[in-house]
C-alpha cells in the first residue's frame, strides 16, 4: 500500500480513491478526485490554478523549504519489518505532522502580519480623525468616557535638559 500524491492538487491519494491515467510515454498521472482529473483533461496548468499546492508554493503562499519535508521523500527500498521500528515510526509520523502544521501556520501568519499591522494603524487613524461622524466633538470633549485614555509618560529631568541642549 502506498499513499500517492495527486498530480494536480498535490493532496494524498488514499487506496481506493482516484483514477490513474497512463500516457503512452509511460508517464503515470494520479488524481485524487474527478475535479483534478477534469482540470487535467482541460489541459490546465496546476501552477496557474489558484487552489492547488503547486500554485501556493510557487507564489510563496505556503512553506517550501523545511526539514520536515525530508521525512516524506519517496523510498523505493522495502524495509525489513521490525516491530519496534514500526511502532516508533508511527509515533514519529504524528509528531512530525504536528510540527509541520505548526510551522506552516506560522509561515502564513508571518506573511499576513504586515497587512494586519497596516490595518490596525489605519483603524487607529480613522478612530482619531473620523470620530466626529459618530459623536459631535463638543459632546466628546465633555464626556470623558468616550476619549482614548491619556497615557502619562514620566520624562526625567536630565533627559529634557539634554534635548534642549541638542536643539540649540
Amino acid at each position, binding site marked *: *500500500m502506498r499513499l500517492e500524491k495527486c498530480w494536480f492538487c498535490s493532496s494524498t*491519494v488514499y*487506496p*481506493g*480513491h*482516484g*483514477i*490513474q*491515467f*497512463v*500516457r*503512452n510515454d*509511460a508517464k*503515470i498521472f494520479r488524481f485524487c478526485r474527478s475535479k483534478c482529473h*477534469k482540470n487535467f*483533461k*482541460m489541459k490546465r496548468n496546476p501552477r496557474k490554478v489558484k487552489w492547488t499546492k503547486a500554485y501556493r508554493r510557487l507564489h510563496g503562499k505556503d512553506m517550501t523549504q523545511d526539514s520536515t519535508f525530508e521525512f516524506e521523500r519517496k523510498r523505493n527500498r522495502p524495509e525489513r519489518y521490525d516491530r519496534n521500528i514500526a511502532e516508533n515510526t508511527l509515533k514519529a509520523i504524528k509528531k512530525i505532522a504536528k510540527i509541520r502544521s505548526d510551522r506552516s501556520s506560522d509561515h502564513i501568519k508571518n506573511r499576513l502580519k504586515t497587512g494586519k499591522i497596516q490595518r490596525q494603524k489605519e483603524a487607529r487613524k480613522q478612530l482619531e480623525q473620523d470620530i466626529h461622524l459618530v459623536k459631535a466633538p463638543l459632546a466628546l470633549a465633555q464626556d470623558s468616557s468616550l476619549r482614548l485614555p491619556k497615557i502619562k509618560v514620566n520624562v526625567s529631568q536630565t533627559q529634557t535638559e539634554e534635548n534642549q541642549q541638542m536643539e540649540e
Partner: protein
Amino acid sequence: MAASFASKCSRVGRSLLGGPGNNLSGLQSASNEVVGNNVWSQQRTFIQMRTVLKVVDNSGAKKVMCIQALKGKKGARLGDTIVASVKEAMPNGKVKKGKVVYGVVVRAAMQRGRCDGSEVKFDDNAVVLVDKQGQPIGTRVFGPVPHELRKKKHVKILTLAKHIA
C-alpha cells in the same frame, strides 16, 4: 462497477451501447477526443465489434478491427482477448491485411478497476496479436502495459514489455 456503468448508461443513452448494428457509435467511442470545445467528458466504453485498435508489437500489422470480443456480453476490456481482422499492415510482416487474428487488449481508454479500489486508464486502445494458444506472434511490445495481464496469464507479453504500468 456495474452500478457506475448503469449510471453511465442512463447519461449516454441506450443507443450508444449497442449490438453489432451500431457501427458509428462504436467507432466514436474508441476514437480520440475531439479537439476544442468538447468539455463534456468522453464516455469511454468497451471494445466491441468494429472497434479499430492499434497494434503495438512487431508482428507486421498496424491497425486491426475487432470482430468479436471473447468473454463479455458488452465487449472486451483491458486484458481481454478479441478476435480481429487486420485492416492495415506493414508490407513485409508475419501477418497480412485481411487475416483474422486473435489479440490481447493491452491498453484501453476505458478505465478498469484494480483490486485496491483505484482505477486505471490509458490514452488509446492497443492490442498485441497472439495465436490461439495465447503466445504473442511478435517479438517486441511497445509502450506501457498493465499488470492486469499477469492475472490473465499473459506473462510472455509482460516480459517483452518495456514498461509495466
